[in-house]
């Protein structure tokens, strides 16, 4: 999902950077110092998740988990994901440096959208309903991310159209896997530590 340096046009880079700065500013404002450890944990988890590979037939996919992170953090997902992407870029050469803004907005904006879309659903008293919304959040964030990645490419040149479409198709298995994995993770967390997902205890326990 990470785009490398050199592929995108200047206006796309600038727009991405501007959106990320805005998102991070909102995120930082909504996050106080006592919250830092929690956000740091999720940022680190995103980093680790990209090393977890699951087999799909003969191939394998790695997890992205931006849906889960969005559900847990809301706007704070912006700074969390920016930090993780920055560390990956600087220390592992994953993704580029100047495209950091575009990469961050492509991954963090869907996280925030999922937060508003599914936050209510996952705190439903029925575990089935909650799991479904978890799955929607997990798969949905990947769908939006992929669409945004495709758009970033397309806006940078007609020639990328096919690559953009291919990106989308290639990520369909990821959407399925992330859906199931996020649903299970949401189910577990709401049983074990509902306050982590901002779920009211009374609601989760009926």
């Amino acid at each position: 999902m990470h785009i490398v340096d050199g592929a995108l046009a200047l206006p796309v880079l600038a727009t991405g950077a501007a959106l990320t700065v805005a998102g991070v500013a909102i995120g930082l404002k909504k996050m106080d110092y006592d919250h830092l450890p929690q956000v740091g944990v999720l940022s680190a988890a995103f980093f680790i998740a990209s090393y977890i590979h699951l087999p799909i037939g003969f191939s394998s996919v790695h997890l992205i988990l931006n849906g889960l992170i969005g559900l847990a953090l809301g706007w704070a997902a912006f700074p969390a994901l920016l930090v993780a992407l920055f560390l990956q870029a600087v220390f592992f050469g994953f993704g580029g440096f100047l495209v950091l803004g575009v990469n961050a907005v492509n991954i963090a904006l869907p996280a925030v959208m999922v937060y508003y879309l599914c936050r209510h659903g996952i705190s439903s008293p029925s575990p089935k309903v909650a799991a479904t919304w978890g799955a929607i959040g997990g798969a949905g964030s990947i769908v939006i991310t992929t669409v945004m990645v495709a758009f970033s490419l397309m806006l940078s040149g007609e020639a990328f159209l096919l690559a953009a479409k291919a990106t989308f198709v290639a990520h369909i298995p990821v959407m399925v896997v992330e859906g199931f994995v996020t649903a299970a993770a949401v189910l577990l967390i709401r049983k074990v530590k509902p306050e982590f997902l901002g779920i009211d205890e009374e609601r989760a326990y009926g």
Partner: protein
Amino acid sequence: MPQFLEHSGTSWKGQKVKHDQSLIDRLDPRLRVVLVTLFAFATVLSHNFIVLTVAVIAGFLLAILAQLNVKRTLRRVIAMDMFMIFLIILLPFTTPGETWFTLFGLSASKDGFLHALMILLKAHAVVLSLLALVGTISATTLGHALAHLRVPDKLVHLMLFTVRYLEVIGQEYKRMRRAMQARAFVLRTDMHTWRSIGYLIGMLLVHSLERSERIMDAMKCRGYKGQFYLFDDMRMGREDYRFIAIFVPFLCILTGLNFI
């Protein structure tokens, strides 16, 4: 990303990329961050093949100067190449223009090929210089350098926490993964696998969060009041100015080349 690269990140503890001590290590971290940013701009914004070739060579030189571990760096660069290989292969066939050659009835254009080549050069120049100049700083020091460069304090603290918890989570992940293996768990393409991995991740987050709270408590018990102490000072020295004296004119020439 190919499988053989897995786990290189789960055991990363925020230390600098393994390499031998070098000239670059003696430079001020703030300077390194600033210079790499300028270099990235000069490279990415250029459309001139001479400039890009020089930039890639400069990237290589920096990597050599920083004495980067060859095997490790190669693995990282290859991993990056895997990301864009798709894009690069498709480009010649999707860009309109005069036909250069045909493959399976598809015509590849020269323009597309040149465009692909340009992306390759830019990406490699940036990644090499980044790994050489910034990847060789330890994450904590980098955090402090960023704070000096007016990056918001909260963001810097977040980064320092993230680096600290990377180790906690990475270890916790490995231990739990091993415990699953010990109960005959094998990764497959099925619901049971996905549910189990979902549980693993959920539990990982809960454990790590609680551990992070306990670590925070332990830090408070030893008088921590919200400030990290570092055993390094940042001061520009003679070597820094010497490096600037070489690097900045080089950047000017690199930019200037675009206009001839």
